[in-house]
């Protein structure tokens, strides 16, 4: 599970109000490089929840990967930024698309119901009495 997928997911368990963001815990995660596509990031950025993304990176023990506040778009998409090591767009790309959580859990902030992540696949199944 990549952090982009984590950013979308909310818990739908009975009793949850927003069920978001799911608290991430990871005992095992890895990174895999993928080519940066600035147009994709540009389309994505207004749609994602920055705070949830930052919280997820910090939960993985990466306190400095992303700042508390989203940098201005002019900075992120500045000409040539994609080629600069450590630039905002590179970090965002890395956070969203290059980190894979293999083992861990997602916890609903409202109900504390925990959803395990096993072999990279979060188990979001609800029991009958939770729907």
């Amino acid at each position, binding site marked *: 599970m990549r952090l982009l997928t984590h950013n979308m997911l909310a818990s739908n368990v009975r009793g949850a109000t927003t*069920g978001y963001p799911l608290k991430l815990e990871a005992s095992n995660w890895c990174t895999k490089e993928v080519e940066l596509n600035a147009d994709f990031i540009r389309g994505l950025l207004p*749609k994602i929840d920055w705070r949830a993304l930052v919280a997820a990176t910090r939960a993985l023990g990466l306190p400095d990967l992303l700042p508390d506040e989203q940098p201005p778009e002019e900075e992120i998409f500045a000409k040539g930024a994609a080629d600069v090591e450590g630039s905002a767009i590179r970090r965002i790309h890395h956070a969203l698309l290059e980190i894979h959580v293999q083992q861990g859990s997602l916890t609903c902030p409202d109900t504390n119901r925990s959803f395990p992540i096993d072999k990279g696949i979060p188990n979001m199944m609800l029991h009958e009495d939770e729907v």
Partner: protein
Amino acid sequence: MNYGPNVLILVRCRAQLGPALLALNRTALKGPPRRQRRQCLPRLAGSKSSASTPRRPACAPPAARGQRRRRRRRRRAWVDMKLKQLEGLLGGLTQFPNPKVELEQYATGPHIASRMLYTAENSFDDITGKFVADFGCGCGTLAVASALLDAEHVLGIDIDPQSLELAQENAADLELDIDLIWSDIKSLSFKVLPVDTVVMNPPFGTRKRGADMEFLAVALKVASKAVYSLHKTSTREHIKKMALRDHNAISAEVLCELRYDLPRTYKFHNKKEVDIAVDLWRFVPNARR
């Protein structure tokens, strides 16, 4: 090679199937960056960009005409090869070894799956560089096809964990990365909606009436660009009405009609039925929510 349980025959098709294919093998992906690569692919007759090129005069000298015809034939051969390559890769996927009948687990055959995704990309630009979700992904046919066509992020969702494991293996065998979620489509909850395109072969509802409509309703909430889906032709009017009236679609179009050979287990209600007529739909959701 496992061709899955169904064979699909194209009956009628309005959409352009085939042209302008993308690098399909993974070694090519390590080559030049995506946009560059796309630019150097020849654009083909019938593809989007050539629609605006003016027609050449019909009275060209015979020699030039012959040359053009030869060139066209060569291009078509090249396209066929790429399409076949995708079809071949999809044919190599492991599919439902022990299908669960109540979940309507039958794979989309490689023939139709490859053409479904080609249409989505070549006629509508809905796959490459996009965030694509596969609802009821099973062993990952449509998700893998999307990843092979260079979707930027692919997310498969299914209620059956064994299928998901196979989907993961299928993707890994082709060195593709797809994200997977184990969930019932009906109880999914998304806070943000970055998905561009949903592709799906939902349960037709032969076991549980209306199962496909439930999938479609969620898909039209989640996608921002388009939803591609297969539904029984016998429900065409109903699907169209529901999609437009109740489920947030601003357009609903049948791209082609297919013959879908369902596994025997599903043909309980009409013994004479050998295969069923199925429509390939493209829905456009109302993105201003």
